[in-house]
């Protein structure tokens, strides 16, 4: 069995096919660990991340510009990943004569470069689709889209107006899709993978023999990597097994008793749990080269995340909560942003934890994180913040705070696409049209 070429273990579990893709083990790479064994470069992957309702600039924008920037309190959670990210402030999303569509115009501009004309209008295609057309054609999934909201409609990815990319919203379903057979025939009644069985027995048990054969050929470092990967997968399966024996948290919109439970669907703690599972699965899928383009939505644009004990969900809070005289910002609204940043930190760290070649998966990834407004309270677009993470295979520097000085925020996306090899002379239309990349971050 030639494991140099096969990167996927297949087996049978209870009569159903299962697939376990393998991460980029050293045995698949060249001697230096900086390219594939056949000489091709390490794949560079592109991802997006979304959080709703912007920031409080007073406690979000660092005082220092450039490398070694400070982390104001709303960004406190980013301490562990500060050296992996670039922060972009002072950039603008321009709508020109197009209307200001609350919780829509901003994110559409950041993902397409085009201001929408009305709430039905999805102009162009989103940035992840553009990149996936360049780098996504050789992998099992051209792109993977996931959301932590538990809502099948939370997606910021679309091919065109009529084709939004529906997200994975259920960690169990996502797991089944990634590790179940490649092809599911709905007309073949016995071919349906049962996630409960998969999780309980572990898909790994379906590929036990092949794993043993593989392990014999691996060096120590690779054995460790495989072990780490399998352990992570098994941990997730244990969680799924637990969930599958009692109602999924996602079904909490329909409680057995008191209405309070109905709201736990959007509770921030529950959202974080879902985010963690979806992130872990997504990172695995990327590490195993199942896809090279991925999207994660932490929240919807007008996020309905709930803080336990506080009656207003995030969006309502941004409009109703008064600005605290002493603090100069809305304390509860800021709480929600801080939770968003915590989850962003988890997302970035998930990629940083996976070893790949000489470094980590994050070294070979570029993640583009955007939001819908600068300030949710006034629906402003001026100064809309952006964050990127990862070094894109060494093409991008990290740890830099860039001040846009009023230039178009789409420059970040444009720069990202150029780094990913999308050879476009410009991106965006009208005042959002740019052909000026952000040189400060380029290596």
């Amino acid at each position, binding site marked *: 069995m030639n494991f140099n070429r096969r990167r996927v273990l297949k087996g049978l579990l209870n009569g159903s096919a299962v697939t376990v893709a393998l991460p980029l083990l050293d045995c698949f790479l060249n001697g230096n660990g900086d390219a594939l064994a056949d000489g091709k470069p390490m794949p560079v992957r592109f991802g997006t991340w979304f959080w709703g309702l912007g920031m409080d600039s007073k406690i979000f924008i660092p005082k220092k510009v450039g490398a070694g920037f400070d982390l104001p309190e709303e960004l406190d959670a980013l301490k562990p990943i500060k050296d992996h990210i670039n922060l972009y402030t002072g950039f603008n999303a321009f709508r020109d004569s197009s209307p200001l569509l609350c919780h829509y115009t901003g994110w559409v501009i950041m993902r397409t470069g085009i201001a929408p004309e*009305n709430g039905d209008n999805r102009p162009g295609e989103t940035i992840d689709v553009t990149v996936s057309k360049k780098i996504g054609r050789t992998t099992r999934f051209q792109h993977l889209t996931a959301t932590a909201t538990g*809502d*099948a409609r939370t997606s910021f990815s679309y091919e065109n*107006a009529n084709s939004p990319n529906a997200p994975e919203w259920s960690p169990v379903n996502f797991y089944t899709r990634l590790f179940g057979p490649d092809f599911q025939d709905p007309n073949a009644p016995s071919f349906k993978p049962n996630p409960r069985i998969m999780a309980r027995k572990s898909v790994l048990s379906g590929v036990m023999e092949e794993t043993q054969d593989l392990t014999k050929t691996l060096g120590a470092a690779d054995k460790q990597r495989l072990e780490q990967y399998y352990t992570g997968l098994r941990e997730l399966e244990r969680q799924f097994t637990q969930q599958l024996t009692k109602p999924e948290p996602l079904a909490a*919109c*329909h409680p057995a008793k008191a209405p309070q439970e*109905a709201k736990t669907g959007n509770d921030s703690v529950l959202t974080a749990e879902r985010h963690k599972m979806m992130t872990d699965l997504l990172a695995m899928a990327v590490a195993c080269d199942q896809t090279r383009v991925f999207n994660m939505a932490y929240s919807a644009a007008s996020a309905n995340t709930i803080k336990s004990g506080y*009656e207003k969900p995030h969006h309502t809070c941004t409009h109703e909560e008064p600005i605290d005289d002493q603090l100069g910002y809305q304390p509860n609204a800021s709480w929600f942003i801080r939770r968003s940043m915590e989850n962003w930190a988890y997302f970035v760290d998930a990629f940083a934890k996976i070893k790949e070649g000489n470094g980590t998966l994050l070294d070979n990834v570029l993640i583009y994180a955007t939001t819908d407004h600068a300030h949710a309270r006034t629906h402003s677009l001026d100064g809309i913040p952006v964050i990127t993470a990862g070094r894109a295979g060494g093409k991008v520097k990290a740890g830099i705070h860039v001040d846009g000085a009023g230039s178009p925020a789409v420059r970040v996306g444009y720069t990202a696409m150029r780094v990913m090899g999308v050879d476009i002379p410009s991106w965006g239309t009208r005042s959002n049209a740019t052909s000026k990349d952000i040189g400060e971050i380029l290596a």
Partner: protein
Amino acid sequence: MRNFGLIGALATASLVAGGAYAAASRGGQDNDYVREPMPAGFQVIASEVDGPVFADANGRTLYTWPVGSQRNGNAGEQKGKPTCDATKYTDNAGLMSPYPGGLTLPEVETRPSCLDLWPAVYANGDDKAVGKWTVVDRPDGRKQWAYDGFALYTSVVDKEPGDVLGGVVRGGNRGGGGDGGTRRAAVAPAANVPPGVSVINTNNGRMLVTSDTKFSLYTWDKDGADKSNCTAACLDAWKPVLAPQTATAPAEWSIIERSPGVKQWAYRKRPLYTRIDDKRPRSQEGSDFPGWRNVYMQLAPKPPASFTSRDTSSGIVLADSKGHTIYTYTCIDDALDQHDCSVPDAPQAYRLAICSGGSQEKCMQNFPYVMAKAGEKSGNRTWTVIDIDPKTGHYAKPGQADALHVWGYRGRPVYTYSKDVNPGDIWADGYGEHRGSRNGFKAFWLRDDFFGGAG
């Protein structure tokens, strides 16, 4: 008071002259939808307002209840997960802002369950999936048919084949979504239109628009059958809807070659255009120009003959015989099963709070019913005469002597507003909770150039 007539929209006097384009009003129904494989026992039925809809073997319209986000959480069903059951909810869920949950619902002792109002379309053990029709498991162990993953239900409000009365009355485009509750929707086959064209439901009928921006399509009286005469200066204002080179035309559609290699769509032999100056989706502004018309697959059923229309500050509204704006009433409650409280046999407390602060008598003064005159009849099932008990606002009992015979739209009474004094007054448009979409009144817009009120 001058009857304005309906320019470019639903014409009470004459369906086609000066009105919208739709060929013969119900002709071509069979070609309006895309055929798809269906399990035995289901059919497609033509409905008066919503076009072809799926129905069960008895002709009862099928509905789904896709999950919808509201201010404080979600209601409705995810794909593959039916939740409508026999639970008798007693409390509101607090999904609507700013009121909390945990409040006992009105008339809680007699409040029906979700399944009481929305019988599930059960499947048998040996039923098999066909195309987009699948069988899903219910929490109670039974199996249920689903379409596109969403579980299927019928509505007890529907009485005859073709009735689509179950969904909450759509009072125009605005105020829905998160503020308008999570509504059930009738399930329908895809419209038989080429890519790039969509059909949307408006108060005037099922209108053709572009898919990506929802901008209106138009036809021109001076074109011939499958022949465009719009050239030169005409093209400065009207843009032909072009067909791709490899396009094939669905039934009732044709492709005309304007010039070598330039292909234009035509519907029922009328070439199609968009208007360059249109700034809004679903616009009717193009129909202001002589000979230009919006395009409908199917026109809406005619309102009562005595009804008129009026210009207002935002567009055109349907009005009673004296020119007073007609309003519909929409209501959906805040329990997890989202009951429709706009029908006369629902608790009237919601409506009475808004229209008078609690009194049916005062409501009839503030928001009078539109009385049907003796012998007045409707030519369709969308506009009907409903018998109402004047003391309660509920349906009158059969033979009730003092029953009011009032006009209704889709099974629910319509109203005027006592403070609308001058022609074109619309002081009750959006009057109610969440701009009327949750519990309140909306003007019956025939055309709304600013806020999309006509749909």
